């Protein structure tokens, strides 16, 4: 193919989104730390899907129009650090094609990849080589080289793909942590999936794609081998979403029940309000099961196979997350008749117990997420807009959300400050320094210094075997992380919590807090805290239900 027109470009992006969605679990598994919240693949896939949904709104297939929508959609849908970087990639890609009228030549495509690469580098404060940045750059260089030699559009894309694959294989040689963990870079792998999709979308016409999609079959989840793409068939065609309102809803139980009914499942919320998202072939069964748990609302079912369908309401559905807080009616959120507050607070929190604690400390809007599911930039934008205040502080409470939180500044009319908290305890510590009458700047400064007064520990399980320093870790081992680094390994959450705290508590410590997870019993946590109180008589030991998924315990020492 000498040149690429809008229809082909759109097709490339659609196929790329499919490919990434199919392979996201493989990307997720590439997390350097074997903790169960490695969701780079999910984040990148959701980001690209948001962008693709935006494309489907296009009233025509002009390249310029499509790329504008692509940039906007990925920006609003960006989740997690890798999602934000990917959105910057598409923004650069879009800028690079802005001048194209009608059809893009090989040179245009190479220019777009170059622009994409440069924009991603600019997006991060301290670019690290051996990551998706490197993959984007090497791909762009390969494309450039091909274009200079007179390659046509499809040859340029192929060169980019080969460059990306080569660069990905090289990432462990550049970044020692990857080599130690025995993985390639996850973001880089995600980007390679996208380049693979570009290539496939180029050589597979929309009609052929239709045929493939019309056939039903089982996808090969384990397949990293790109050659299989042509054989893949989409299952679970109905994107099904709704909110359950009720009492004593157990998101964990819903997850367990629905797991076998489809994929791309997201169940977030608490005992009163839970949002369910799943791709399934049996939306009726899903609705029936959940309908027995409470009242269903905001139900949306889309057939993902009908590509030209108008997905208007679908694109808006992230807003529902934020409707959740309004539905529950937390004070200060729904009552907009009063004068606006000076400074409001949005916090990203996983777990109903922790969410309650954050609200009780004055947080106006809690965005559910963090460990299992990073909220998108749009989620945060909606939450910030829902707070009735002139300026808003965001507490990301997760290192993978800080970047998306910072993106919000440019997307809302309010003044936004981000206190870069990396854990829930840091967020709580920061909130101790919040003074409602002070300015945004004063509060951000005080909270930033305050968040450092606490040490955070986490107890979870290893999702795969690895070596961390001197520690040999097997899959399913219980691991304890101090300040984000693996410090202890063992077989029982309680023992690991005790061992972990021994590395964290010193003579100066005064308070130990234990937040137990959704799967822990209160009695176990109380027993643990009793033994801790015995061991650390100079400290106050406090135990709270955190309700967080995947993490047996989150502990803090101050």
């Amino acid at each position, binding site marked *: 193919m000498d040149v690429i027109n809008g229809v082909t470009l759109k097709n490339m992006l659609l196929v790329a989104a499919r490919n990434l969605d199919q392979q996201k679990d493989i990307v997720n598994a590439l997390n350097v730390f074997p903790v169960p919240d490695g969701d780079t693949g999910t984040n990148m896939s959701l980001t690209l899907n948001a962008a693709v949904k935006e494309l489907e709104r296009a009233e025509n297939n002009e390249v310029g129009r499509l790329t504008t929508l692509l940039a906007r959609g990925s920006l609003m849908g960006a989740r997690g650090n890798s999602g934000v970087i990917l959105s910057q990639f598409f923004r650069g890609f879009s800028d690079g094609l802005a001048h194209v009228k009608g059809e893009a030549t090989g040179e245009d495509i190479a220019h777009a990849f170059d622009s994409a690469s440069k924009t991603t580098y600019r997006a991060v404060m301290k670019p690290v080589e051996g990551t998706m940045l490197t993959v984007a750059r090497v791909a762009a260089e390969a494309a450039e080289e091909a274009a200079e030699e007179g390659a046509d559009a499809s040859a340029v894309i192929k060169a980019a793909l080969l460059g990306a694959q080569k660069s990905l294989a090289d990432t462990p040689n550049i970044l020692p942590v990857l080599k130690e963990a025995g993985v390639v870079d996850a973001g880089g792998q995600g980007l390679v999936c996208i380049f693979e999709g570009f290539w496939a979308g180029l050589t597979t016409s929309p009609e052929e794609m239709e045929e493939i999609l019309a056939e039903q079959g089982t996808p090969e989840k384990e397949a990293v081998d790109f050659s299989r793409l042509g054989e893949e068939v989409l299952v679970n065609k109905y994107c099904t979403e709704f909110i359950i309102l009720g009492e004593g809803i157990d998101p964990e139980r819903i997850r367990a029940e629905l797991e076998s009914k489809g994929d791309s499942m997201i169940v977030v919320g608490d005992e009163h309000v839970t949002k369910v998202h799943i791709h399934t072939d049996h939306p009726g069964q899903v609705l029936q099961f959940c309908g027995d748990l409470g009242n269903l609302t905001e139900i949306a079912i889309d057939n993902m196979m009908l590509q030209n369908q108008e997905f208007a309401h679908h694109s808006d559905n992230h807003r529902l997350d934020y409707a959740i807080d309004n539905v529950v009616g937390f004070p200060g959120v729904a009552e907009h008749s009063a004068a606006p507050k000076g400074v409001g607070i949005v916090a990203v929190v996983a777990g109903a117990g922790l969410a309650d604690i954050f609200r009780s*400390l*004055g947080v106006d809007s809690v965005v559910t997420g963090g460990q299992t599911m990073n909220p998108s930039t749009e989620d945060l934008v909606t939450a910030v807009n829902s707070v009735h205040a002139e300026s808003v502080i965001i507490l990301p409470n997760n290192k993978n959300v800080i970047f998306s939180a910072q993106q919000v500044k440019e997307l809302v009319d309010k003044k936004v400050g981000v206190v870069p908290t990396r854990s829930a305890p840091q967020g709580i*510590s920061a*909130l101790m*320094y919040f003074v*409602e009458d002070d300015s945004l700047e004063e509060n951000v400064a005080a909270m930033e210094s305050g968040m450092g007064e606490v040490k955070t520990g986490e107890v979870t399980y290893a999702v795969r075997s690895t070596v961390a320093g001197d520690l040999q870790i097997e899959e399913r081992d219980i691991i304890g992380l101090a300040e984000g680094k693996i410090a202890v390994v063992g077989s029982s959450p309680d023992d690991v919590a005790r061992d972990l705290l021994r590395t964290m508590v010193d003579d100066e410590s*005064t308070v130990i807090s234990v937040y137990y997870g959704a799967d822990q019993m209160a009695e176990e946590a109380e027993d643990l805290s009793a033994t801790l109180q015995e061991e650390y008589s100079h400290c*106050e030991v*406090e135990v709270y239900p955190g309700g967080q998924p995947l993490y047996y315990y989150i502990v803090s020492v101050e």
Partner: protein
Amino acid sequence: MGKIHVVTDSGSDLSLEVKERLGIHVVPLTVQFGSEIFKDGEEMSTSEFYTRLKNEIEMPSTCQPSPADFVAMYEKIAQPGDTIISVHMSSKMSGTYQSAVLASTMLDSSVTVKVVDSKAASMGLGLVAVTAAQGVQAGKELDEILSDVQHTIDHLQVYFVVDTLEFLKKNGRIGMASALVGTMLSIKPILTLVDGEVAPFEKIRGKAKALKRVRELVVEFQEKFPEKKIRAAMSHATTSEEATQIAEALSRILPLEGEVLIGEIGPTIGVHTGPGVIALFLFAM
């Protein structure tokens, strides 16, 4: 020219020794447990009070002295031509000041009563009363004493740490600190008084950390007034060992004017603050 007398109320938490040495007269408030009524310090001791507070389910309450109680005190101590300086708890926290003002209008004109709103409580009020009494003992003129008293009121800095906000809240004395109520975490707030009302100063997790922070605040206070002598007082509803320790630490940090006055928080204040309170009062001379 008559004598000058100093009167305060039982919300001042002054020790018996200080009261007797400086000749300060105290009008007691009454404390009510259910239907039982006691005069603070006269019919119920501080230790009895905290024992009952721990054991009783029902929250006790306090009642301000009646104007007649003040009239009785004023008439007992003053001769015609004398002046009384009557200093009381913040009018925003208690009706005691109002009662004293009413009483002052009920006396015959041969005795002058200057009723002063200390905008403080506990040893903060105590320090104001001590300032007045020391002025009297030093033979100062009334105007000079009143100006010293006003200076103390205007410059007094108060920090206090409560074990729980429950007592302040239930008795409606929580003022601007109400935003701290309802937090699910155990927070030991450092509170202060702003214009005679309880206000939040900082939120701290853990009492040990809160007390550490109070010590830092003392150092910061001194740095604000490097040239000045500082007068300090503290009151507490905790062990006297802990109080003595803190007082000793204070005198090491600060260039102090006189000793650190230590008062035990009596029933009048204790009803509103509960057990475990430590309060610090500072002002630069």
